[in-house]
């Protein structure tokens, strides 16, 4: 896995453990942010690396911009108001940096 600082001069904006909100947007093109976590608040579980932006590679861009990918951990009960499992159950989801904002 490429470490963020290794191959690119990209410094991740968010740190492990930091609280972040996943942005909400109505989009008609190719993205990888699932609808059910949009607008939800979680914490950075790990900085997963730097990857070509899927929103560009999805359309065949050979030189897509590199973006930092994070794993964001959310509590299930923060996602679903009717969640029936344990209140400690979690969901981890991979989110690109431009979909995150500091809380």
């Amino acid at each position, binding site marked *: 896995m490429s470490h963020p600082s290794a191959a690119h001069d990209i410094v991740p904006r968010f740190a492990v453990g930091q609280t972040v909100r996943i942005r909400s947007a109505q989009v008609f093109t*190719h993205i990888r942010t699932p609808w*059910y976590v949009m607008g939800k608040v979680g914490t950075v579980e790990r900085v997963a690396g730097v*990857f070509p932006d899927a929103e560009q590679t999805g359309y*065949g861009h050979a030189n897509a911009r590199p973006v930092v990918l994070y794993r964001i951990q959310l509590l299930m009960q923060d996602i679903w108001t009717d969640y029936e499992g344990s209140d400690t*159950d979690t969901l981890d989801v991979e989110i690109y940096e431009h979909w995150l904002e500091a809380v």
Partner: protein
Amino acid sequence: MAFFCYPVERYHDVGGRIDAPLDLSRSGYEPWEKEIDAIHFMLADAKRRRIFLEEFRRALTLQLGRERYLRLDFYERWAIAIEVLLVEKGLISPVDVGSSGFDLNVLQHQRAPVSAEDAASKQRVTDRQEAERRSMLLKQALIERGVMTQHEIDAFIASVDTKEGGDGAKVVVRAWKDAAFKKALLKDANPAIRTLGIDLGFMHICVVENTSAIHNLIVCTLCSCYPRYLLGRPPIWYKSLAYRSRAVRQPKDILRELGVTLPDGVQIRVHDSSADLRYLVLPLPPPDVSDLTETELIGRVTCEGMIGAALR
């Protein structure tokens, strides 16, 4: 099929939306499904580089239209997505695959008054036949253009058929036996796995560990991403809309339907494989782990266990 809520524009984005039981009745893929699977991975391989994963995901999710997306089965959607991409790239012509697709007998059936259930069942058969027919034409077009040969397709299928989760099981068993390997694996999986001589292709693996207090479950709500290079083809239900939808909303119910009952108090951690990582669950070792050899233990690990759908 009941829907929790469903905006029209992102119909493939099914996390938490579809409340339907898991269908565990089908096992084993049909020959044409294995061929479409092989054609997809061969088109993307280092030798050909004709299509790229993210383009395929886009074609698979945005090109089909809501009604057809929800109606078609997994490889039926794959066949169309490959066709769309290859036409976009000028590698095949639309008529190579799309022509003379109308069976007049089927059309006449559809004109006769039928019950809604009959119509849906006839539609299912028509979809299936149409997907199989298009896949065959697609394959012929690729062979005629020299992109691949039938022999190469057969060899690819055979290599996947013999894999059956073997490489994943080797990783799991080594981690059970070797604490230093396990530590390295959980910290940064790719270099650790490569020390076992396993080819990971383009995959970036993230390993998550089951403990007596935590159970991990893997899903991809947007398509059906799966650690292919480690586990081969996924179980059929893994690709279903019901699993993709409910695993992130009703994981305990899904696990129960899969035959997994967790003790009270076990925390469930669901991982949505939404972008560039692929996941491997490290199951709990059997109680007699230290008495068994690595070869014996490999036989105890299943694909289901390595995605959290079974205890081991």
